[in-house]
């Protein structure tokens, strides 16, 4: 009996605190744990008794990397509970700020967290010594996304301008126009990024996933749509909890999500790309095709190329929105509280983020449920490792460990998010 174990105590280049443990016995993987030890923060619990208008600012604090996702899912949930729908330019501005978050978050992950794995560097600063121009371009690309978030949202991290019903202050056309040249540059830089990442050496690894993402009638999804999968799921977001379940496991402070009766599923760029390729903008489609991406795309390591394609899309979409922008008369629509339940589901950079709130007639939150993308991917990440490891047991410990880390980083896991949601136990 030959046993071997691969252990990463503190996984680097991800957001938050987690580790990996893999046990192998006679060339068979006997145990895989993506171990989350980030301490829990109990957001669902202390949201109880707060006003519905506070949810966007409070839930933003779940994650410093994707606060817009939390703000968007929570405001849509509150508006759905109160029977309000926000349309026109206000709706477009919400897509615009989301474009900013996708650009900055994707640029961060592509260049600073993931590319060093493909190119054999410990981090982006080491990488900068040999690839100075690419890193400078990356920083500028990321900065463009941050500038867009800061302009519409007030600041990059925990923006202050998003509210239930709309915004506190509207950007002027002139302010938005000032970003056009930079966004055009960013779009071209993102196309370069697709080209660059497509040349990376990809491990030969594919799996049959059930991909789940939002699908909208005529847009690549941000804030609205139905939840669909490549295996026949097609539900309104309010049906989420009837179709998905969460499991609490001893080694993790995050819950594992599963599709009822079917098990693990895959959310994020790869899922969106496979399910919504036809909704991508022209330049993004062209860049994807030129990079040789074909459907179905089942190699999770290629998610880095898909993130680059989505960055192209986000730049193009931002440019389109700015071009069509006309400043509305009022920055928000009035939302009066109503007793009831509201659902919100939006596409965070790493996959869809589900919120559900029950409000009383005064607008106080009676209970809350938040399911972030990382917990939904957790089981899939573990299953990937189970298949990834056995054919690679001839690698040195150092090399295999690094490749396992890289396989987890395919999902851009956000562990800070993953620990804070959790199951609402109705007993």
């Amino acid at each position: 009996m030959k046993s071997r174990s691969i252990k990463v105590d503190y996984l680097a280049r991800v957001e938050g605190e987690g580790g990996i443990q893999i046990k192998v016995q006679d060339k068979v993987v006997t145990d895989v744990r993506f171990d989350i030890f980030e301490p829990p923060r109990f957001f669902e619990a202390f949201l109880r008794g707060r006003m519905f208008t506070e949810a966007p600012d409070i839930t933003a604090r779940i994650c410093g990397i994707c606060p817009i996702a939390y703000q968007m899912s929570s405001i849509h949930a509150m508006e759905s509970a109160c029977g309000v729908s926000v349309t026109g330019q206000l709706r477009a501005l919400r897509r615009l700020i989301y474009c900013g978050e996708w650009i900055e978050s994707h640029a961060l992950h592509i260049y600073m967290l993931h590319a060093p794995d493909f190119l054999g560097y410990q981090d982006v600063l080491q990488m900068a010594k040999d690839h100075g121009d690419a890193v400078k371009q990356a920083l500028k690309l990321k900065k463009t996304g941050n500038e867009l978030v800061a302009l519409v949202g007030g600041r990059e991290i925990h923006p202050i301008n998003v509210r239930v019903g709309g915004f506190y202050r509207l950007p002027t056309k002139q302010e938005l126009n000032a970003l056009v040249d930079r966004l055009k540059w960013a779009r071209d830089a993102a196309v370069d990024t697709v080209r660059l990442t497509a040349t990376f050496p990809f491990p030969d690894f594919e799996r049959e996933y059930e991909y789940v993402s939002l699908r909208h009638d005529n847009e690549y999804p941000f804030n609205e749509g139905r939840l669909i999968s490549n295996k026949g799921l097609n539900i309104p977001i309010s049906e989420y909890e009837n179709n998905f379940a969460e499991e609490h496991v001893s080694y993790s402070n995050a819950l594992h999500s599963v599709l009822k009766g079917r098990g693990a599923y895959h959310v994020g760029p790869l899922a969106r790309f496979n399910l919504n390729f036809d909704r991508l903008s022209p330049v993004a489609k062209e860049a994807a095709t030129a990079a040789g991406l074909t459907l179905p795309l089942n190699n999770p390591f290629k998610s880095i190329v898909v993130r680059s394609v989505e960055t192209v899309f986000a730049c193009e979409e931002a440019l389109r929105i700015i071009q069509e922008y006309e400043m509305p008369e009022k920055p928000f629509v009035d939302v009066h509280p109503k007793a009831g339940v509201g659902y919100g589901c939006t596409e965070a950079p790493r996959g869809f983020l589900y919120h559900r709130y029950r409000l009383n007639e005064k607008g106080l939150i009676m209970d809350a449920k938040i399911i972030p993308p990382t917990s939904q991917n957790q089981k899939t990440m573990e299953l990937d490792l189970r298949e990834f490891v056995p054919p690679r047991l001839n690698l040195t410990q150092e090399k295999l460990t690094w490749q396992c880390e890289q396989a987890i980083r395919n999902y851009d896991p956000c562990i800070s998010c993953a620990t804070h949601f959790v199951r609402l136990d109705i007993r």
Partner: protein
Amino acid sequence: MKKERKPKLAIWKFSSCDGCQLSLLDCEDELLAVAENIEIANFPEASRLVVKGPYDLSLVEGSITTPHDAERIHQVRRSSKVLVTIGACATAGGIQALRNFKDVREFTSIVYATPSYIETLNKSTPITDHVFVDFELRGCPISKVQLVEVLSAFLNGRKPTTPTYSVCLECKRRGTVCGLVTHGPPCLGPVTQAGCDALCPSYHRGCFGCFGPKETPNTPSLAEYWKGLGMKNLELLHLFRSYNAYAESFRKESEAHEK
């Protein structure tokens, strides 16, 4: 001439959202220059490389919420010449300190199906409750400008110049019309420390206290003023009890409206 050793910087995470340490990566224009002058010796969010301590400067993000972290912060302190806390979690316990006002056992069962798997302390506490802190950088999130100032100050052996006065001064400097005078939305500006450049008032909303209490804040007087304009106890409680809820003056003020 012998090349001088670059000072070693370490970044540590406790209970937090990662936003404050992300601020360092968000310094897109300064990052490469920073890396030329200091050795980033421990920064797991950005690098697999871990260089052993001791460290010349440690930035600590997050609050203490587990028995393990209450131990770990002492190791961090021992390996750091200078320890600076970054953000509202590290300086005041953060939003997760809302648990401090409730029974945490009730919280775990609301959130997790099997609460026995969860190890957590009753209270979320700031770093300074556990070890000596050389300097505290406020904010939820911190300001990038202040972060670069702190790095540059400590690496040059001087004190950082970050103001302890209120948001009001920044508002005046920006020329924003005062919401208190014009009966705009409730604003914590007069009792909140500056650092955000009075962001919210310039976006037509009241300050909600991201940078925590300023030096010598008169919170009862401000609360009385808003009460006079018709604000309810619950609203006042929520206003003072958010991202810096466990900072002493905000905590006392929120408790005063808990009836």
